[in-house]
């Protein structure tokens, strides 16, 4: 298995990084706990059940709600573009920019756009795409991918930020976080006012309204969707909910699960371009509905629940594995437990085969998931699939041979007993030699018993 062992070792043995991950996730755990407890939110478990039921219904009738969404977006003067791949999404935006003579676009945070390397695709054609979420902006300047679904620059310190701003923008070396934020506000404000196109993601797509819902704290998504003349929203097809009223369930869960906020600073409910009489807002609205492999996840009736995810990041914060190895050691932009179940389904179980195994199955992720995705169960299912593929492709047949040999010995009691007592003699050597040395190096093995059960039974009988 191609585990990124060196990188993981590096992350684990970096005390500064470990402290950063630990403090950030601990804080997010605390914030969440404060707003989902029964005193504050007595209906929390009901909301989770309702969210799960709504998502299940929507995903199982996805084509119906997509068409409903589409016709309502069009009714409000917007356009819907179905995109099978990231390339199709980027090509559409490049074509649009060319036709409108746009040179720069501002972007609010979107994991979907990270997933398809949207910015890189545009920049390859000299179309500047500026990330405007503070964390994402820092990462764009530092040429890194998000460390966390919700807190993208969790791993960087104010000193790292100072260095990036100095190196990339020629800023003065400034390590006071308030001043760094103010500096970024100033630079990005100009971009907002100049950009011809604003690109956003969407936390929810509302079928009965033809609307998108964007949830944020900084105001950059509001600016991206309101200041430029063109608004392009990119969303995965699974982001659907049937009715605007379902937001009473989902908005009550998303902010609480993500950052411990009953509502984030801004929740924008947007449908189409500005209407007649409205003073501002975009003249054109395009909704890019992205597949990029999502339809593959629909086939399995059990695994399709992976598409219920609302990207709150709670499973990352509560995962003992994520909290040790960090976000960049996961093979794809989606890290943590949710990444471990969706990555193999998007890329195939033959890629990154270690991923479903990198879990202690402690179940913390399932316990905090606001839409009740059974992550540990899906991890087990994916493990089975990995093993199944490996068994089928195991050309050496070594494992099969080993099991045949074992079965042959185990069905011959006398031989088995003799070999077993011999085995207990050599057992203490196992951690020191042979192929198990590495496996045993981080484990404490039990002492073999001084006598086997058979020996003990025989002795007991003798002594009567």
């Amino acid at each position, binding site marked *: 298995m191609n585990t990124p062992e060196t990188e993981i070792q590096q992350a684990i043995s970096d005390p500064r990084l470990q402290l950063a991950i630990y403090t*950030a996730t601990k804080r997010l755990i605390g914030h969440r706990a404060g707003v989902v407890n029964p005193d504050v939110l007595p209906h929390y478990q*009901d909301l989770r059940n309702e969210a799960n039921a709504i998502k299940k219904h929507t995903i199982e009738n996805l084509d119906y709600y997509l068409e409903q969404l589409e016709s309502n977006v069009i009714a409000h003067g917007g356009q819907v573009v179905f995109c099978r791949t990231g390339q199709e999404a980027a090509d559409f935006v490049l074509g649009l920019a060319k036709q409108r003579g746009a040179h720069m676009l501002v972007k609010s945070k979107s994991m979907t756009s990270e997933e398809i390397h949207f910015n890189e695709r545009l920049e390859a054609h000299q179309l500047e795409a500026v990330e405007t979420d503070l964390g994402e902006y820092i990462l764009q300047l530092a040429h890194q991918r998000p460390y966390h679904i919700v*807190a993208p620059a969790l791993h960087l310190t104010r000193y790292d930020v100072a260095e990036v701003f100095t190196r990339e923008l020629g800023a003065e070396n400034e390590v006071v976080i308030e001043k760094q934020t103010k500096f970024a506000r100033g630079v990005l404000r100009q971009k907002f006012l100049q950009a011809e196109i604003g690109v956003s993601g969407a936390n929810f797509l509302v079928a009965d309204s033809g609307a998108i819902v964007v949830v944020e704290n900084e105001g950059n998504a509001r600016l991206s969707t309101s200041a430029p003349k063109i608004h392009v929203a990119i969303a995965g097809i699974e982001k659907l909910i049937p009715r605007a009223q379902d937001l*009473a369930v989902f908005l009550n869960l998303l902010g609480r699960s993500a950052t411990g906020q009953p*509502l984030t600073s801004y929740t924008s409910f947007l*449908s189409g371009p500005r209407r007649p009489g409205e003073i501002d807002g975009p003249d054109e609205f395009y909704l890019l*509905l992205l597949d990029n492999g999502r339809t593959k996840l629909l086939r399995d009736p059990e695994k399709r629940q992976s598409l219920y995810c609302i990207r709150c990041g709670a499973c990352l914060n509560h995962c003992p594995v994520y909290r040790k190895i960090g976000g960049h050691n996961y093979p794809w932009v989606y890290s943590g437990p949710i990444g471990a179940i969706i990555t193999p389904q998007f890329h195939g179980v033959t890629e990154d085969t270690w991923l479903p195994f990198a879990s202690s199955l402690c179940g913390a992720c399932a316990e905090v998931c606001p839409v009740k995705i059974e992550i540990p169960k899906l991890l087990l299912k994916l493990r089975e699939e990995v093993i199944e593929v490996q068994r089928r492709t195991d050309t050496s047949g070594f494992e099969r041979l080993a099991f045949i040999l074992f079965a042959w010995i185990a069905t011959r009691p006398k031989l088995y007993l003799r070999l077993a007592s011999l085995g207990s003699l050599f057992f203490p050597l196992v951690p020191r030699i042979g192929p198990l040395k590495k496996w045993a190096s981080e484990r404490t093995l039990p002492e073999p018993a001084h006598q086997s059960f058979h020996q003990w039974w025989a002795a007991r009988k003798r002594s009567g």
Partner: protein
Amino acid sequence: MVGRPKEVGMTAREHILGDIRRALGRAAGQPPRMEAAPLSAPVMRIPRSDRNLYTDLFVQKLENLAGKGICVRDTAAVIPAITELLAQKHAVASNSPFLRKCGITGLAQVHTGFTDREQLKEACAAADVGITSVDYALAATGSFVMISSASEARLVSLLPPVHVAIFPRSRILANLDELLSILPRPADQTSSMVLITGPSRTADIEQILVRGVHGPGEVYAVIVDEE
């Protein structure tokens, strides 16, 4: 359709919908299946408390987020309440009739009456304070509900570093659920409904909370007792 020949777009659409239907075993135009995964009527949880308590709750929630609530008796008391706030400042006010009623639009340092997007954008980018009314407010979370219209533009509550919202007490609802009960389909009347809950904020660097990133760092609610 822009940027791409229509036919190619249609193909992607048909491919995606086709893939979905094959995976789910559904036919084109088939209504939602309810047997295995029913869709229940939405549950709206609206606390049945005394509406007179909403103002206090709203102010408490807003101030927990470092906003400020100012309660005044009538529209005549609004200007005296915000004089200090507007001293030496340039402000942009929305076209809300309620602001006119409060006399805001008559103040010398207040620019208002914008109908052109570019002029409004320029004015808001240069202003110190943005003054709006609200369509509703939510007591449970201390939120403003802003519906984009000829009276309320999107950028007035967004570009200036300070946002002052002036509204009658009667606009305060219990919570989000009550809002969605009153407005089950907000898109029927506007392209943009925004819930504003406290100042703009970030914790992207070392999880340290900083207010006023891209939106206003200071938020004031002036709540008028009698209309």
